[in-house]
């Protein structure tokens, strides 16, 4: 039986982890792109590679189970709809949501945040109100709020980070006030790897009556997330960063809030009735899902979530922490290397600069040595400004990376130093 067939046969009940001890070498074999070339891939924070089961699930959907959803009375359409809705349940369980109606399928984390800004934001933020973000946000958790504030005459406040790249929680608390309507923070910083105390942030924000939006794009692949425990109001993440396909994202929203919100886009699927005089809108979550969604992508997304559940996120997280420790120590031995982002609580992301070398040159040389890293501002220009650098080199690790990958990075950085000496 193919991997896709197996995945389709999985029951909706949560799978027991394959084993408590995580084996990265075995996991690496699940990723075809890592087999067919000598690739040291250290850019999973930008987008993760795909395991065979995800690729198979997408092919299986289009080969055997494809029709448009929520429409036809014929059997194939009903089956496609059931598969699509089963992914909603998988996503619900994966992040600990209370109700599958709280899972809205979107295109990406970016779209999820824009959706909240355009609906909840427009409805609840008025002139003189405030939206509070942090200095370490990705542009996608800055610009939508900036646009909202501009439109409404509201004020965007920014909680600062310290020189290790950690949020200054006391400053954050000081910036909360009666006018704060929305707090939007990242769970894990893409440029620095900093893990934010999002439960505490949520508590503080709620004490001031603000709704909390969490950008979880970097957290979900590395860390078990439970939105009910966090008590956040919205949580956004992308399939492509959790080893699923591009083009699919999730917005989690508390049912009571989603129910009170106006639609995001108008079109098919999101309506109850339409006439030229007046249309009425569907219940949640369909109210926010206008148009035909990425049906094949959602099938692949389910396989990705099943895959991670099977491996066990706690085991993955503890493995990645040992890898981070190893990488941090290895890089510290390279003369002239300045780590950017050294907070106590970090995910497996290492940003750095090499003295006398522009990150873009690092990137070309590392690539030439077979090591793929991201160089640039990582869509976090305010973070770059904070540290006084135009750009950094970022090595980000995922479950398929090993200490050999770290060693290859170190060797390649020595080539850079040799060249630029």
């Amino acid at each position, binding site marked *: 039986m193919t991997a896709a067939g197996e995945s389709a046969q999985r029951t909706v009940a949560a799978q027991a982890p394959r084993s408590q001890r995580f084996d990265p070498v075995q996991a690496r074999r699940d990723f075809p792109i890592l087999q067919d070339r000598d690739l040291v891939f250290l850019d999973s924070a930008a987008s993760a590679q795909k395991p065979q089961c995800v690729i198979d699930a997408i092919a299986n959907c289009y080969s055997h189970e494809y029709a448009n959803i929520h429409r036809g009375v014929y059997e194939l359409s009903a089956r496609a709809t059931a598969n699509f809705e089963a992914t909603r349940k998988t996503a619900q369980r994966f992040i600990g949501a209370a109700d599958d109606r709280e899972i809205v399928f979107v295109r990406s984390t970016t779209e999820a945040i824009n959706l909240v800004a355009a609906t909840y934001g427009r409805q609840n933020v008025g002139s003189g109100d405030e939206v509070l973000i942090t200095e370490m946000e990705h542009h996608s958790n800055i610009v939508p709020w900036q646009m909202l504030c501009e439109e409404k005459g509201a004020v965007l406040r920014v909680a600062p980070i310290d020189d290790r790249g950690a949020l200054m929680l006391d400053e954050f608390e000081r910036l909360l006030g009666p006018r704060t309507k929305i707090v939007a923070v990242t769970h894990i910083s893409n440029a620095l790897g900093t893990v934010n105390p999002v439960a505490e942030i949520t508590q503080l924000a709620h004490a001031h009556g603000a709704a909390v939006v969490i950008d979880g794009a970097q957290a979900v692949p590395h860390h078990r997330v439970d939105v009910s425990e966090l008590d956040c109001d919205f949580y956004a993440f992308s399939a492509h960063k959790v080893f699923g396909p591009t083009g699919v994202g999730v917005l989690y929203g508390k049912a009571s809030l989603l129910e009170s919100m106006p639609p995001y886009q108008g079109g098919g699927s999101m309506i109850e009735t339409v006439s030229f005089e007046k249309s009425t809108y569907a219940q949640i979550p369909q109210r926010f899902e206008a148009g035909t969604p990425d049906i094949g992508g959602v099938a692949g997304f389910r396989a990705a979530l099943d895959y991670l559940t099977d491996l066990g996120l706690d085991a993955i997280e503890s493995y990645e922490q040992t890898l981070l420790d190893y990488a941090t120590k290895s890089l510290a031995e390279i003369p002239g290397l300045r780590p950017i982002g050294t907070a106590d609580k970090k995910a497996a992301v290492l940003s750095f600069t090499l003295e006398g070398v*522009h990150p873009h*040159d690092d990137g070309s040389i590392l690539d030439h040595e077979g090591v793929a890293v991201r160089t640039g501002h990582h869509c976090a220009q305010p973070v770059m400004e904070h540290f006084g650098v135009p750009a950094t080199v970022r090595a980000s690790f995922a479950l398929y990376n090993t200490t050999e990958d770290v060693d290859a990075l170190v060797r390649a950085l020595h080539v850079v130093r040799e060249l630029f000496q």
Partner: protein
Amino acid sequence: MSSDLRELYQSVILDHNRRPRNFCKPECANRSAKGINPLCGDQLTVYLAIEDGVVKDVGFDGTGCAISTASASLMTQSIKGKKVEEVEHLFAGFHNMVTSNPQSRIRDEGLGKLSVFSGVREFPMRVKCATLAWHAMNEALRDTGKAATTE
């Protein structure tokens, strides 16, 4: 270390990166334009002093990678004192060299020291770095008031 990496980062390029020439705004400058690469954050400004159709003086400032910094530096040296038409001709020749097919013969006739950038064509991702200053200089030359951007 492989030869094409050495070819890209020749000692002349590394030297101009470390000690960029004409890294200043000439007092008599009467035109300027910015060059921006939003993807990597490179930003530079090229200043020109044009008199009677001749580049009397030229300088630049800003931040960028070794390739874009060295390219700006060597560009300033090679266009200073040249007629505007000669500069345009040089830009076309330089552009052709760094964007040509790596399999074809290198055409660097008349480019002088600028031929150290011939290795760039092996690294298509770096063509924008090598040409950023030239595009900015071209905007300044035509006095468009616009910034040159790679995207």
